[in-house]
C-alpha cells in the first residue's frame, strides 16, 4: 500500500454505531455537513475551471490519487494519477492547461452526500516523509461522484463514476484533505483523462 495512506481504524462500513472520538450523532452530522460544503466547493472549483483553488483543499503534503476500483480491490498500487503534494497538483494543472494537447471539454460533477466512516490516527511517518499535523486525528469519509463530460458540439456523456475515499484533517485554516482517493468504477477511460475530478 502507499506509505502515506493511513488505514481506517475506527470505522464501520456504513458509518453506523460508535465512531471512536465522536461524542454524539450531532457531532457526526456537523462534520458531515462541513465535508458536504467543502465537497460542493471542490466540485465547483473544478467545473468552473478555478484550478488554482483545487490544491488548496489539501494540506501541502496532501495526496491526490485516481485509481480504478479494479486495482483498489486487488491491492494493486498503480494509479491513473498519483500526486503526492500540492506542488505536484500545481504541476498537474500547469501540465493539463499548458502542455497536454486534447479536445476541450466541460466537466460537471454531481456528488452524493458524504458518509463519515470513522476516524484514524496519522501513522508514524518515515524520516524522509515527516509530517507534522496539529491534530493527529483523520476523519474518513466516502462520497459518491459522477463526472459528466461535454465536448463542443457534442451531447454530454458519463465520463467517470466512483467514490471519493477521503481522509480529512483539522488545520488552522479549517478542514483539509490529507488524502483523496478517487476510486472509479468506470472500467474504461473514455480515451484520455485530463482534468482532475
Amino acid at each position, binding site marked *: 500500500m502507499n506509505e502515506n495512506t493511513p488505514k481506517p481504524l475506527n470505522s464501520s462500513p456504513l458509518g453506523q454505531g460508535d465512531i471512536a472520538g465522536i461524542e454524539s450523532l450531532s457531532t457526526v452530522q456537523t462534520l458531515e455537513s462541513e465535508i458536504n460544503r467543502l465537497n460542493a466547493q471542490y466540485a465547483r472549483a473544478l467545473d468552473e475551471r478555478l484550478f488554482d483553488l483545487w490544491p488548496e483543499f489539501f494540506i501541502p503534503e496532501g495526496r491526490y490519487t485516481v485509481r480504478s476500483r479494479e486495482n483498489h480491490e486487488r491491492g*494493486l498500487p*498503480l494509479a491513473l494519477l498519483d500526486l503526492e503534494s500540492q506542488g*505536484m497538483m500545481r504541476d498537474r494543472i500547469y501540465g493539463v492547461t499548458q502542455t497536454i*494537447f486534447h479536445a476541450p471539454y466541460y466537466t460537471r460533477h454531481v456528488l452524493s452526500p458524504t458518509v463519515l466512516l470513522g476516524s484514524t490516527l496519522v501513522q508514524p511517518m518515515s524520516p524522509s516523509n515527516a509530517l507534522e499535523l496539529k491534530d493527529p486525528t483523520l476523519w474518513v469519509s466516502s462520497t459518491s461522484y459522477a463526472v459528466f463530460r461535454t465536448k463542443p458540439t457534442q451531447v454530454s456523456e458519463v465520463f467517470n463514476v466512483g467514490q471519493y475515499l477521503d481522509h480529512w484533517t483539522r488545520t488552522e485554516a479549517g478542514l483539509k484533505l490529507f488524502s483523496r482517493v478517487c476510486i472509479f468504477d468506470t472500467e474504461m*477511460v473514455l480515451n*484520455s483523462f485530463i482534468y482532475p475530478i
Partner: protein
Amino acid sequence: MNPASKTFSQTPGNISRVPYWAYTDPHLHTQELGRIFYGQHWSYVGLLAEIPNLGDFKKTQIGEREVIMVKDHVHPSQQGLDHGIRVVENRCAHRGVRFCQKTHGNQRSFVCPYHQWAYKLNGDLGGLPFKDGVEREGITQGGMPKDFDVKQHGLNRLKVEVLHGLVFATFDPQSPPLDQYLGPRIMPWLERIFKSRELTLLGYNRQRIPGNWKLMMENIKDPYHPGLLHTWFVTFGLWRADQRSRMIMDERGRHAVMVSQRNEGGDGAVTKGVTSFKPNMKLQDDRLLDIVQEPWWTIADPSKPTQTITPSVTMITLFPSLIIQQQVNSLSTRQIIPNGHGQFDFVWTHFGFKDDTPEMTRRRLRQANLFGPAGYVSADDGEVIEFSQAGFEQFNSDGLRGGETLCELGGREVAMTEHMVTETLIRGMYNYWREVMGHE
C-alpha cells in the same frame, strides 16, 4: 473507377502512402481479424506474474475473440518441458456460450452456466450432465448418442509459448515458433528487460480510443511526433530528435524497436519554432523526474558487439497488438484490443521486478504519471489518434475510398537507421501488412 478496385497506394509501387480506407473500411477490418489476429501471428495475452498459482486465470482478447489464460497442472513427466500455461477460447463447445464472465480469478475448472458443461483447466471436457441419460422406472431416457466422445468436445485450445515471463498465443497451429516469429533483431531487446527476471504486477489502466487499431502501432513506430507533440519529452530531454537513437525492425518489417538515450533537454536546434517546447517550465515537485539509471539498462550492443549501449528508452512494437515500454524507470506492456474498425481498447499493465527496493517501486509508480490514459506524454496520443480517425472518416464519407496518409520522413524506403528523423518503421509495417492482406 470501381472504388473497390483502388490499390493500396494511389501512386503505384509507393509504399510511403497509406490509403484512408485501411482505417475506415469495416469489411477490411473483418479480413484483418481473420488473416492477422486469427492467422499465423502470435498475440500477447499476459504476464506469468498475473497468474502465479495453480488455477489462476485472466480473461483477455485476441482480436475480437475472448480467451482465457490459465495456470494448469504440469504432469510430473513434463516438469521442465511444459510451462503449464494454457490459453483457451471463451466459448463453450456445446452451444457457443461465452461461459466466463470474470476478468480474473482462481478456478479448479470452468463450468458453462447454461448446461453445466465442465472443462478442465487445459480445456478438455471433463463431464456434462445427463450424458448417459436419466433413469426412470428402469428405463434410460435421452442422453448423448453412444458415439459421443468427450475428447472431441473440449474448448478451443490455442498454441501457447512463454518467453521470459511474457505469454503469447496463436489460434493457428501452423504459426511458426515464437522466436522465429519475433526474429533475432528483436530478441536482444526483449531479453534486456525480461530475461531471468521475476516480475511484479503493479496494476492496470484501461482506455477506449475511438480510432483504428493500427494507428496505435503506428504511434509507437513514429519517432517524429514525441519531441513535437509531447512538451514533457522535448523540454526535459526524455525523447527528442537530437538524441542518440536507433530504429530497428525484424526482417519482415512487422516488429520494431525504437531505442534512444536521454539528454539534458533545454534549448537546441530541435526546439527552434517548436511551440510545445517550454524553456521556462519548472516543476514545483520534481520527484516525478527522479530518474535513476538501472544496471540492466546497459547491454552489449547487439549491432556492435565490442561496445555497450545504455538506452534510457526502448519502445518495442510486436505485431499485431503489443507494445512494450521502457521509458526511464517506468515499465509497461500495452495491449491493443480492436473493437470494430474505428475503435480499440488499450490495456496498460505496469510492472516492476521482484528485487526492486521500495524506493524503486515508488519511483516506477510515480513515473507512471507520465504514461497511461492520464499521462503527460500519453494522453495526447489517444487524442491525436481520435482526430486522425475523424479526418479519414470525414473524407471517406462519400464511399469513394479516397485519400492517403504520407509517411516520407527519412525517405520512401524501408531501412533501419541510427537516428529518429524518419518514418521508416511505419513504412515497414505497411509493407508487411500489404503482403498479408494481399494488396499491391
